[in-house]
Each structure stands twice: as C-alpha cells, then as structure tokens.
C-alpha cells in the first residue's frame, strides 16, 4: 500500500466514523425532533422540544369543523403524557390511576377512579367520580358532571388536557 493510499484510507476511516454517527442519528430522528404531525404541529411537539404552554385556549383554538359524530381528541397539555393525543371514540372513557381505567394516569394525586368522559348527543360530558383531589375545568373544581366544550383545559392531578373536536 502506498503512502497516499494509506492517507486516503485514514481520512476515509474518519469520514466513515462520522457518517456512521450521522446515520445513527438519522434513524432516531423521530425521537430527536418528534414524529411528523399533520395537524396542530405545536401541540403535538414532544416534551423535550418545547414546553407546551398550559394555557389551553391560547395555543389551540377550537376549530368549528363540521361534525358528524362525537369523535374528538384529547390533547395532553401538561403532565407525564404532555404532547400526546388520545383519539376518542363514540363511547365513555374512565380516567384514573387504576389499571382498569380507559386512560391510566400514573400520578399520586389522581384517584383510582377519578373521572369519566362520556359522549352526550353532539358533545361530551365530564363527570367527577368523587376524586380526592378534584377535577378542574377551566380552573374551577367541578362536582358531578358538566358538559365539556372543546378548548377548555381540564386539570387532573398534574395532568392538563383539553378536548379538541
């Protein structure tokens, strides 16, 4: 091997090492920059990228789209699931710490059976199931059931979520 070949190959090795690093970063890009989201990009940004503001209505104005059913989405604005979304189907969903719940929140300030969200005609009804630390809708603690409109922040333990239609 001539001196020149050696030098070229040595440079090639260094280049390859960095190319390898870049390929590795490329394969985990979804974890670094978040998955591609078509709607509402800022609400779905994963936690490390940018802290989503808690003030719900400011970031995500409800879009009065033509609605055919109650299908909506819960968007997590704060708490352990921040940045995630949960598609609601046309059936009730329970929220609580118990693993039987439809939406399990691992949070010591959440009761085992904390609240229930049920479809009601064209909208949704949120019902507090006698939780210890309460369910707050728009900053006010609710008792019993209240209709839940899109874009109003709901606080349960350290989780803040809102309904989007």
């Amino acid at each position: 091997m001539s001196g020149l070949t050696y030098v070229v190959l040595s440079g090639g090795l260094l280049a390859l090492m960095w190319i390898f690093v870049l390929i590795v970063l490329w394969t985990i890009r979804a974890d670094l920059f978040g998955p591609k989201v078509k709607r509402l990009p800022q609400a779905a940004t994963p936690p490390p990228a940018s802290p989503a503001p808690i003030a719900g209505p400011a970031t995500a104005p409800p879009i009065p789209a033509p609605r055919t059913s109650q299908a909506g989405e819960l968007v997590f604005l704060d708490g352990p699931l921040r940045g995630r979304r949960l598609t609601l189907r046309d059936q009730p969903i329970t929220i609580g710490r118990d693993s039987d719940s439809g939406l399990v929140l691992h949070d010591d300030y959440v009761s085992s059976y904390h609240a229930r969200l049920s479809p009601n005609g064209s909208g949704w009804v949120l019902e507090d199931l006698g939780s210890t630390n309460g369910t707050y809708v728009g900053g006010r603690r609710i008792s019993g059931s209240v209709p839940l409109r899109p874009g109003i922040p709901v606080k349960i333990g350290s989780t803040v979520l809102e309904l989007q239609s």
Partner: protein
Amino acid sequence: MSTASTVAGAAQVKERNLRGIELALTLVALAIGALALILVQYGALGGLRPVPLVFAGVYAVSVLAVHVTLRITASHADPILLPVSALINAFGLIMIYRIDLEKQVTALWSPAARQVVWSVLALAAAIVTLLLLRDHRTLQRYTYISMLAAIVLLLLPMVPGLGSYNGTNARLWVHLGPIAFQPSEFAKIALAVFFAGYLVQHREALSLTGHRILGIRFPRARDFGPILVVWAVSMLVLVFQHDLGTSLLYFGLFLVMLYVATGLTSWVWIGLGMFALGGWAASRVITYVQGRFDAWLKPLDTKVYDTPGGSYQLVQGLFGQANGGLFGTGLGKGYPGITPLSQSDYIWASLGEELGLIGAFAILCLYLVLISRGIRVGFAGQDDFGKLLGVGVSFVLALQVFIVIGGVTRVIPLTGLPTPFLAAGGSSLLANWVIVGLLARITNSIRVGNREAVS
C-alpha cells in the same frame, strides 16, 4: 381497554423494521472496524497478517449472534444499542492490538487475543441476559438480594487472600485461581437494580415528607438511613480500596437515581455536600488523593512529574493526544505505547493520538448516542422500575465515561476506571454488555407495550 389505546404518540410512529435497521447498522459498524484493522496493519507493519483477521472474524460472528438473539427474543428492542456498542468495542480491540504491535508482543496469547476472548464472552453474557431475562420487571423481586450482592462484591477485594492490587494502586481486584477480576464492575449493575427497586417503593415517602429549612426540603431521619449506608460504603471503598473513581461512580449513581425518582434537587445538594466533605477529609488523611490533586493541578511541575505515581503518566497521555492533533497520526503510526497502561486506563489517549480529535469526538458521539437511548427509557418507559433501571444503568455508563476521559484529558483529577467497552479487561466488558442486554430488554418491552396498546 380499547379507547385508551390510541395515545397518539405511539400510534403515529410507523411500525418500522427495527431489526433490519440494526443489521444494516451492525454491518456498517463491522466494516468500519475491518477498515481500521487493515489500516493498523499497514500503518505499523506495512502488510496484512492473517491471524488478527481471523480474530476479527470471530468477533464479528459473535456480534451477529447477539443480533440473531435480539431478532428471536426481543424483536422490538432499540436498533441502535448493538451496532454502537459493537463499534466502540471494536475500536478498543484494534487499539489494544495496535499497542501489542508497538510493544512487539508476538505471543499468540497477547493482550489483544485475550480481549477478543473476553469480548466474545461478554457478547455471550448479553445473549444469556436476553435469554434468561424475559421481563425486566422480574428483577424487582431481587431488590434486596441485589443490595446484598452489591455490598459483598464491593467489599470482596478487602478480604485478605482474595483481594489484591494486581499491580495497580487500587485494591480493586479479586483472584479466583488464574483469573483476576474487578467485582466493582458487576456491583454497579446490582446497585442499579437495588436502587431502582428501593426507590420505586419509597419515593413517595422520600419526596413528600420532611421539613423545609431555608427553602430546602430535608428528609426525615428514617428516610435518610439508606443514603447514609450508601455514603458509608462509598467512603469505605475510597479509604480502604484507594479508589476515588469507583466511590464517585456509586455515589453519583445513587444521587441521580434519587433525583430521577423524587424530582427533588435538595437531595442532590445534600449528597454532593456529603461527598465533598468526605472526599476533603480523605484527601487530608490519605496521601494518594492529595497526590492525584497535585498531578491534576500542576502536572508539568518537575517535582510532581518525577514523583513515583506522580503526573508522568498523565503528561505522557497529554503529549500523545497533542501529537495526534486534529486528524491523528494515523492508525499504526503513533507511539501510544509510551504511556503507562496505554491499553487499559489510558486507551483514550492512545485513540486520541492515532485518530486525532476528529476520531476521538466521533467515539464520544457514539457514547452519547448509546447513553441517550438509555436515558430515553426514563420518559418513554411505562413501568417505574424499568424507567429507573434504564436511567440508572445508562447514567452509570455516562458517569464512567466522564470520569475516565475527564481524568485522561485533565478536566478532573485522574482516577483509574476502565473506559467502557474500550479498555483492556474482562470484568468491565462483561458488565457493560450485560447492561446493553438489559437496555435492549427494557426498550423491547416499551415498544411491545405501545404496540399492544394500539392494537
């Protein structure tokens, strides 16, 4: 329940061919290793030798065996772990071989050959971990057994007749027949398991109770007990085994896991304060700690340089890295063997000399990516035990990399710890590949959990 299922982060991520990605990356990593080996041979000898290529082939086959095991037992594990660790390990092998060449070790049973055998055993250990441990949560049952194991492993080198310095200045070694090993390397896994299990049970008591004094929450006395025990054990290690690095490693691991479990910074400050106090007291009493500080602060002082155990090694390492410069001398063209312990503690300086700053930083990036995958378990994981364990074992890797490379590059005082995956030595390799197996297992259950939720 099906409604819960579509927590959308998981649903939006396409089902990717993870094992295919892993295989491709592994092949690229092995190809880079092969190129480096060929360059070493041409650089140092001017031609190819067949025997090392056979050893390299054995290593490559073992790495692929881990890949096959992952395909069978953990098909949703993170695809980055194996190729990145395999590449770092390969650079370690190549550098040890290169220093063998410089020192003209001709015996077949050379340090490099031994390291290949250890690598194969370590990869086998990762396979065994994956085969035996089908669910990482079973480890939670062994919380207190792990604590016992960790303490026994840590104190084992102090047993007369078993423990020895093994030619180094730390009493870290245990001799079993012809094999000398460092139990502290295995202790770090046992400790991480214990901390994870213990903190999952007690974190509420730790994070919610206690008095606030001057804005810092002080824990209750009885919650404080275990911390005192860990502190005492790491101080014992420091005083009796002469090993600042190991004691820093364990205490740091404990503090970080406490912080991750409770989210309270006050614990970190209290712990760092306690360690600083203990370290300061130790440096007054024990001369070797004082010597390390001197070597760190004034390495080029003639007196410090000439003292036995002074800064000679540190300075040789720095000269080597300076000789490498930005692009390195080229593999096989430098003089890394001049530095004492250039195959183990100082392998970083050897790599820095021949690969240069650019190559060394690429290896640091590999560590960074590997560790970030483990830390990610902390927020992607579903069970608290797995989260804490994942963060714990990856942080211990991170801290170890920092302590060793920081010491060699004179960022912090030098303490002898094996550089993960690189340094010559079997215990460290075995322990680190077991950690890779654990992380693969945990990441696998995260993805499987998400997938079950979606379907």
